[in-house]
């Protein structure tokens, strides 16, 4: 059983996209109202869950609009847009409908403001606070209760009006807004390194310390719309595809080289916070590639991955720590292979009993293992060895360097994780094309048939667990070195869920998918500290949406059309149909 199954029915995502017939007036009016009410619920949700007030602290465009406001505006706008989509109507009607739907959502917010002025429910609903009401009314207080209503109507009407624009214009506009959003979010990340380069002035002009400047916003909007327009009219991608391969390579190779150099110099000049973030992303890429073998190739949903992570981390901790529980004070590099081997042994022993368990039972059983290991690590029983909740501290850095070296701090972890990821990717790629990799995929596809073909399920599955465990152990080892300590509280079920989610969101069985998944699910939430409280909310939404819209992931593994590089020269020509070669 697999998520990447090509034959998967495209299960209905949004309620019947094209199906909504050029509707009869009655149901059509009802739909506007219904969309408006749905929008109201969503807007209220954004407020009460705390997304609006908390994200309000982060500017998108300095002094103009915050992320929290943007979220609200987006939801009102989307309400109007959805309410007027796919309806062939007069322009006035479209705008009116959008305004009604958006306004309806706004009314709910207005009601919230009024209600808030009467009763104080902050004891239960901490987000129903004056801060929220201030955002909703531009700090006018209760007198400004009409503002959300009006804003909703205007935005909804605007969204209806957009429906009148030509599709091309609409798309350009969306591209502009999306670019604005993205660059506003990442402003800090882009600005910090630019400040160290000759383009510092430009950076200051376009980016504030958080978010874009007003000038920056205009520049981004104009530039992205312009670029999109050029792409639309000139079709650069088609031009590129039409080039002869040699010319194409002449463009591709420098681009790839540039990307490689970027990846290598990425942590330099980012400051230790960003360096830490990308080190963590690289760490998760590494573990994701490891679980990708167990889950992506062999189809075994292992939610106890953190157990092997723990084994790797504690092994390194025990072997290298110079503090209380250290037993050997080895250097990191000597401890890593031991950690990997110990993790592999654990993988085999935990894998053995659960060999015959399938599918969702397996997920629960492995999760049970993860919990067992977590509880044991923090228990008084193992406290004399593992330090209980206080854990093992003073784990030395892998490479001792002066603090101003390019390998200082989290940077070296980044490079180590990068090397680890490259190593794992290489191993995974080699295995994928080997006898064992094919056997794994066969097991994933149909376990019974795979066995009937002569594949020993026991050996093959155990190997999948062992290799997955080895890479998780490696991840744990690097993690221990990154943090410099290992506590029972680092062994969270969430580590397993993080790794499994990033594979699923990125695309099972696909190496680029793992990278994209790690950036989205690990990098983004780490980058926005405000975000971090909501990380799992976004995970949840991402997982649900993903399963309905794109169960194969963002970047699923392409069916590798391998030139059969192994066969080579000495085969008979295709035409000599000699059927008997057995």
């Amino acid at each position, binding site marked *: *059983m697999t998520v990447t199954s090509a034959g998967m029915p495209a299960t209905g995502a949004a309620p019947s996209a094209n199906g909504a017939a050029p509707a009869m007036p009655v149901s059509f009016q009802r739909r506007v109202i219904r969309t408006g009410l749905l929008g109201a619920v969503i807007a209220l949700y954004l407020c009460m869950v705390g997304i609006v007030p908390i994200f309000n602290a982060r500017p998108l465009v300095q002094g103009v609009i915050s992320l929290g406001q943007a979220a609200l505006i987006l939801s009102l706008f989307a309400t109007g847009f959805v309410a007027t989509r796919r309806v062939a109507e007069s322009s006035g009607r479209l705008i009116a409908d959008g305004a009604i739907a958006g306004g309806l959502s706004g009314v709910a917010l207005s009601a919230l403001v009024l209600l808030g002025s009467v009763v104080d429910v902050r004891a239960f609903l901490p*987000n129903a606070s004056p801060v929220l009401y201030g955002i909703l009314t531009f700090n006018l207080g209760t007198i400004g209760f009409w503002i959300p209503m009006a804003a909703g109507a205007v935005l909804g009407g605007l969204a209806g009006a957009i429906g009148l624009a030509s599709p091309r214009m609409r798309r350009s506009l969306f591209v502009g807004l999306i670019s604005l959003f993205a660059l506003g979010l990442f402003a800090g990340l882009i600005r910090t390194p630019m400040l160290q380069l000759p383009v510092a002035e430009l950076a200051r002009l376009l980016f504030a310390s958080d978010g874009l400047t007003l000038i920056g916003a205009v520049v981004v909007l104009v530039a992205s719309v312009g670029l999109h327009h050029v792409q639309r009219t000139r079709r650069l991608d088609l031009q590129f595809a039409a080039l002869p391969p040699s010319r194409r390579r002449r463009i591709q190779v420098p681009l790839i080289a540039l990307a490689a150099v970027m990846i290598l110099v990425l942590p330099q000049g980012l400051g230790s916070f960003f360096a830490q973030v990308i080190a963590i992303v690289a760490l998760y890429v590494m573990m994701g590639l490891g679980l990708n073998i167990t889950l992506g190739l062999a189809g075994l949903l292992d939610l106890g991955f953190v157990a092997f992570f723990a084994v790797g981390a504690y092994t390194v901790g025990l072997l290298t720590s110079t503090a209380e529980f250290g037993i050997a004070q080895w250097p990191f590099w000597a401890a890593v292979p031991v950690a990997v081997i110990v993790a592999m042994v654990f993988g085999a022993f935990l894998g053995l009993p659960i060999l015959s368990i399938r599918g969702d039972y397996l997920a*629960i059983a492995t999760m*049970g293992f993860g919990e*067992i290991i977590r509880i044991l690590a923090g228990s008084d*029983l193992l406290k004399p060895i593992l330090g209980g909740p206080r854990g093992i501290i003073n784990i030395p850095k892998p490479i001792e360097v002066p603090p101003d070296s390019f390998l200082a701090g989290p940077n070296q972890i980044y490079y180590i994780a990068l090397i680890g990821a490259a190593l794992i990717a290489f191993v995974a790629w080699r295995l994928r094309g080997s006898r064992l990799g094919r056997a794994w995929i066969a097991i994933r596809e149909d376990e019974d048939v795979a066995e009937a073909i002569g594949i020993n399920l026991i050996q093959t599955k155990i190997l999948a667990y062992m290799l997955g465990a080895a890479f998780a152990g490696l991840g744990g080892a690097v993690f221990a070195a990154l943090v410099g300590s290992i506590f029972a509280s680092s062994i969270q079920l969430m580590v397993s869920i993080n790794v499994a989610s990033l594979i699923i969101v990125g695309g099972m069985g696909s190496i680029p998918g793992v990278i994209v998944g790690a950036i989205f699910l690990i990098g983004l939430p780490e980058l926005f500290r405000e975000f971090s409280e909501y990380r799992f909310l976004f995970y*949840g939404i991402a997982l649900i949406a993903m*399963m*309905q819209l794109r169960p194969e992931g963002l970047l699923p593994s392409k069916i590798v059309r391998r030139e059969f590089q192994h066969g080579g020269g000495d085969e008979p020509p295709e035409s000599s149909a000699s059927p008997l070669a057995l």
Partner: protein
Amino acid sequence: MKASLIERLTEGAIVAFLWLLRVAVVLVVVVGSALTIMSGRYSLEVYVGLVVSGLTLGSIYALIALGYTMVYGILRMINFAHGEIFMAGAFAGYFVVTASDKLGFLNQGAVSAMITIVVAILVAVAVATPVALLVEKIAYRPLRNAPRLVPLISAIGASFVLQYTFRGLFGPGIYSYPTVDFLDRTLPISGIIVRYVDVIVVISAFVMMTGLYLFVMRTKLGTAIRAVSEDKDTAALMGIDVNRAIVTTFGLGAAMAGAAGVLYALLFRQVFFMTGFVPGIKAFTAAVLGGIGNIPGAMLGGLFLGQVESIGPTLFLDGFNVPSPNQLKDVIAFTMLVLVLVFRPSGILGERIARSRA
């Protein structure tokens, strides 16, 4: 047979390992119990007390387990978000009990306390059921025909969304249930200590489970649910509204879980956004233990798990002088889950799910 020596050795090793595992578990249980009992550290009262608290906890697990078992029976899917439905019930109950406390009604005697509890349970059911139906509609219904991993992952997602929605709404803090004096009083039986809360939890759980059992066995809709669990396609052909049966199943499971949330919170007197996680997994364990898809099995499994968890740490581990054995009660529960999945995947009473394989 040209099986290589290595192959045969590994196979032998695997069989040996699995046997070793069984022997080790039996040894720990038997020797540990013997050592504990012989040490005479605990009086009979202590054991009786553990049995009582195991019964209380177990009946809550049983209530939650019903939802898992019924949904699994009908959709072949682990409703990962079920623990969060339970948590929603606990939250809803919190607000009722707190309101009653604020109004000065709660502690006016047994009757007012009982009225509050009944109202809390009703409100919890009224909150938990629509939440579950919403989850079913948004996260599961579109995936009914997808490969089995797909709805499972969607369920994990739904579980996150619910947890962190509650966290966003009510904050990360722990809400303490107000003290209900009546519940903490003990029954006037000499020798053993049984609090009223235990009695109330056990009785309410049994009343609800009996109600559910009768509903499923006796009513037309209950029959429809059983028919759909047996064979969805055939049931549809026979004119049963499959969708209605599925939605009802979710609703019933959620009602039980919501009520269980209140009972759990009365017992442990606190609720926060992660309250549902561990009891959820435990209750799933109970469902597997009893044989998934099997309603009496879920009840039995819940009671059994409650006992093991309550008595287990003291009885099995204390004899070995394990420090703070109660830390390891979840280890015992999860070990049991794995053991059941490995050695008796169809549970104590057997699965009620026709397995169709080539």
